[in-house]
């Protein structure tokens, strides 16, 4: 009887250790994610790209201008977005106020202490710091390391692996923020 309990305990310990390794790797080392949406075209595909992002650089402060980062959205905290860092704290950032209509009207902003300015590569269809302002650096979760060369996540295996890993390790399905063309025109 004791041997059964002992075996059950050993198996549970094995599962717990495996989960621990998975969690530590996903939260502190690197994570797999599926990034989709129009705001980072042409860097990231509209229908989705498999990306590998590492979590060490943001912790040690090694994120800089030009990096593509995964950031927790300041508007919807359950959502995570992929954008490019355009300005670090203290930088002066110039951006077009209305890229659909005018090439001339700029706005200049100085990024406050402890914040970063993020923008999507596709400025015509991206909700980013131009809408919600500079983002605290602590919201930066990971830095992009690698993007799959097989474009598009229509491959069922890739999508399944991402769903599984994001479900197991807590919600890292990346949404690259959408903003329909009609919405911006209507403003």
């Amino acid at each position, binding site marked *: 009887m004791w041997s059964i309990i002992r075996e059950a305990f050993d198996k549970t310990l094995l599962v717990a*250790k495996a989960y*621990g390794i998975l*969690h530590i790797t996903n*939260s502190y080392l690197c994570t797999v994610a599926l990034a989709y949406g129009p705001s980072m075209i042409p860097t990231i595909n509209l229908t989705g790209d498999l990306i590998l992002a590492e979590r060490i650089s943001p912790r040690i402060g090694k994120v800089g201008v030009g990096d593509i980062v995964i950031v927790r959205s*300041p*508007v919807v*905290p359950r959502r995570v977005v992929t954008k490019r860092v355009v300005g670090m704290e203290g930088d002066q950032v110039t951006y077009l106020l209305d890229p659909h209509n005018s090439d001339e009207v700029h706005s200049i902003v100085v990024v406050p202490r402890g914040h970063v300015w993020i923008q999507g590569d596709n400025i015509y269809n991206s909700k980013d710091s131009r809408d919600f302002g500079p983002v605290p*650096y*602590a919201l930066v979760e990971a830095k992009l390391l690698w993007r799959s060369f097989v474009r598009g996540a229509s491959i069922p295996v890739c999508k399944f692996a991402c769903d599984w890993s994001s479900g197991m390790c807590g919600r890292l399905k990346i949404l690259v923020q959408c903003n329909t063309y009609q919405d911006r025109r209507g403003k």
Partner: protein
Amino acid sequence: MAAAREVLVSAAKKFFVLGLIGVPITDRFASVVPVRGRSMSPTFNPETNPLFDDRVMVEKLCLRRYNFSRGDVVVFRSPVDHKEKLVKRIIGLPGDWVGTPHTYDVVKVPEGHCWVEGDNEIPSMDSRSFGPIPLGLASGRVVRIVWPPQRMGEVERKVPEGRLCPS
């Protein structure tokens, strides 16, 4: 000599396994952290002696859905220094209008943000100095005081009167 190495190796293995299981638990369920400073007096650290900091239990299950309530005490990373963690009480949720008693300002808390303040009237590093903060900065909710024994117990949810303007 070899026996001592064996003991050391087995002890190292046990610590490693403990860490492997302990890290997901502290990240996903609950952890115990010390509270420093007196910005949350009298709820935490009512006396000035820094040797006897309060220790509190922080639960992380709230981070699945980020559904906080007014009056919750939360631990969050500071918006001006990403390495620092602060403990304050949530006064306003998205959409609330929060009034400051000493000025005539009334601030509307934007979508996805919250207004946090320390319980102590002395202004501290909270929303009175850096404004509303994104809810994504939160890294847990304080539920119990676990040390010192005479003040062990639940941390209640309470909102100071007259701060929230009726919407």
